[in-house]
């Protein structure tokens, strides 16, 4: 099966984001003829003299009416080498939560800058979210170069401004690349622009094609949260107990010594199953089931780790959260915290501050409103088994569920 690469884009229609995505689809022949027809028809109706690619991205009636992106859309295209999924989200401040959502599953991010406007407030916010979520690869796409006479000087100035911003980044391992674009005529998206001979770097697609999966996928220690226990109760598999889950962080092999949390019971992996086959080892990312040498009690919400690589086991966590609910977060409020398959009740012990997404710093706060990001302390009714987000993305993130409405009220990154 082909490699899948997830890309986050954010921005408003004005930045040429839809045009960029439309171009990627168009130039990789991923737009089917009936979709292309629909785009041509609608562009004509609106009286445009170019293809209105926003139709390729904006899915809801309200979005097409208002010409804006409201919710995250998922767009697919593929080349002979890779499958790509674009999580396309809106760029305005009132949609910060959607940007965070889109970025949460992505390994690459494209930040669009209008060459006429340069680095603006919105650029700060997009980059801040990329830092916070620790997206490894960032492409700064400086678009509308056709409107600034394809000027190398303009490009250099914007790059220098962004580099100054990058100096404030909290995530130094991030790779930032700068590509000048003219999305409306496809320059440097899939094919090299002839109008910018001074640019010798890759096109957007070249860059994506050459990223190696091993470089962009997160690594960390082996973490195996139990989703369910498979017990067939048939005569053939009478005593079978398969602990089912997805592997995060690192490979696992038969014979590895493991520890079950929270019981701290130690055992050894005797079998790794995937469907009707047994394997010697399994790669991170695989959904498998395993058997242990000892008959110990393991249930959903437990976690299996290597015996020498224990995570932090605590009843209190410090985290940065992005608030996603209309009802504000206040000190003392109780929420259901979901960390992998483990759900525990939590109480907001303290709200330390809000963090501005424009890098202007932290301000003291006692509540968090929709789309606000801040540092909090949460006390839990039972311990969870976590790593810091910067050490292990999947084992360092969680959601908060409002117990009254059941909605997902926040995402958190453990510090």
């Amino acid at each position, binding site marked *: 099966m082909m490699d899948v690469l997830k890309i986050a884009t954010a921005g408003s229609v004005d930045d040429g984001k839809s045009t960029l995505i439309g171009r990627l689809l168009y130039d990789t022949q991923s737009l089917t003829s009936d979709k292309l027809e629909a785009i041509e028809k609608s562009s004509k109706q609106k009286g445009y003299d170019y293809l209105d690619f926003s139709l390729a991205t904006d899915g*809801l009636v309200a979005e097409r009416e208002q010409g804006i992106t409201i919710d995250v859309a998922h767009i697919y295209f593929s080349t002979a080498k890779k499958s790509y999924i674009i999580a396309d989200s809106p760029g305005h401040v009132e949609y910060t939560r959607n940007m965070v959502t889109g970025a949460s599953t992505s390994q690459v991010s494209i930040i669009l800058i209008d060459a006429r406007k340069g680095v603006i407030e919105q650029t700060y916010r997009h980059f801040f979210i990329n830092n916070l979520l620790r997206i490894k690869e960032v492409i700064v796409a400086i678009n509308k170069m056709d409107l600034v006479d394809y000027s190398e000087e303009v490009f250099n100035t914007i790059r220098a401004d962004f580099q100054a911003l990058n100096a404030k980044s909290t995530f130094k391992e991030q790779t930032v690349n700068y590509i000048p674009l003219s999305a409306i005529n496809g320059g440097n998206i899939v094919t090299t622009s002839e109008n910018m001979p001074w640019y010798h770097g890759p096109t957007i697609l070249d860059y994506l094609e050459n990223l190696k999966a091993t470089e962009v996928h997160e690594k960390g220690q082996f973490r195996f949260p139990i989703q369910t226990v498979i017990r*067939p109760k048939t005569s053939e598999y009478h005593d079978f107990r398969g602990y089912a889950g997805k592997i995060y962080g690192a490979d696992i092999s038969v014979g590895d010594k493991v520890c079950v949390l929270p019981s701290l019971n130690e055992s050894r992996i005797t079998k790794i199953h995937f469907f009707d086959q047994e394997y010697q080892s399994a790669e991170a990312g695989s959904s498998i089931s395993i058997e242990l040498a000892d008959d110990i009690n393991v249930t959903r919400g437990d976690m299996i780790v290597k015996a020498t690589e224990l995570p932090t086991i605590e009843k209190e966590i410090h985290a940065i959260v992005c608030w996603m609910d209309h009802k504000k977060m206040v000190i003392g409020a109780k929420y259901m915290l979901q960390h992998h398959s483990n759900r525990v009740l939590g109480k907001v012990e303290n709200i330390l501050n809000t963090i501005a997404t424009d890098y202007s710093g932290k301000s003291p706060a006692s509540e968090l409103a929709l789309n606000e990001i801040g540092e909090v302390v949460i006390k839990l009714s039972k311990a969870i088994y976590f790593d810091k987000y910067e050490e292990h993305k*999947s084992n360092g993130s969680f959601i908060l569920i409002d117990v009254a409405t059941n909605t997902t009220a926040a995402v958190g990154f453990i510090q």
Partner: protein
Amino acid sequence: MKNRLQTNALESEAIYIFREVIAQFDRPVLLFSGGKDSITLVRLAQKAFFPAKIPFPLLHIDTGHNFPETIAFRDALVAELGLELIVRNVQQTIDAGKVIEESGRYASRNTLQTTTLLDAIEEFKFDACIGGARRDEEKARAKERIFSVRDDFGQWDEKNQRPELFDILNGKIENGQNVRVFPISNWTELDVWNYIEAENMAIPSIYFSHLRKVFIRDGLIWSHADFVYQEKDEVTEERMVRFRTVGDMTCTAAVESEAHTLQEVVNEIRQSTISERGARIDDKRSEAAMEKRKQQGYF
């Protein structure tokens, strides 16, 4: 014993989702249409719970307008895997006076089946309905969550969806609500075909080229059948055709094809420039046809 298991990201994600469903819900059901996507779901569910049996029933909403080949395939699959199959008929919903049969050239039971589905959900108190919808199929579906909450009336509130972060799935709902679950959200049509080919899965015969009685309307190839409305001047003829998507005979158009084997079908898809829903008559009703149907509880 095999050596090292390498991840197929899409397959792993789907299995993960199936296991979350069984852990988070009391009465899940798999919505089975007999099409390639729901057949793929059955295979993935098998993998998620092996060596145990698939721990939930299949639900087929039978419009009475299915291709007979699909029904035969469904029954064979259910028998082979020892699954529980629940069938509810749109005809009964019509007979009970809950919906009125459409008439005219474009009459179809496609919209009517929503009522039958919602009745079945209520009858069996299903809290999670697993479906084979994919985000690449259609623009409203591109916005769909993996766990998509529906209210008592089965409605989708598209502007106020729960955020879904990383792979953390929140299936908490109130009494009366239910969740539609889409394990192959991130698969494309080609991913599904590649998987069917790699797994050498059986699929209904109408996906392969065959000689069929058809007639032409609006540039699309319609199947000739007793319940498909046909004008006198719409001449029945025989053509070599196959279907890219399996819906009702009244709303699924055929394509001309000489693809007789799985490999030929997959090759044809790779080269094709018409999206699969382009052959869905039900989507042609308006640009927002799918979004409207989804708001009302359509799958």
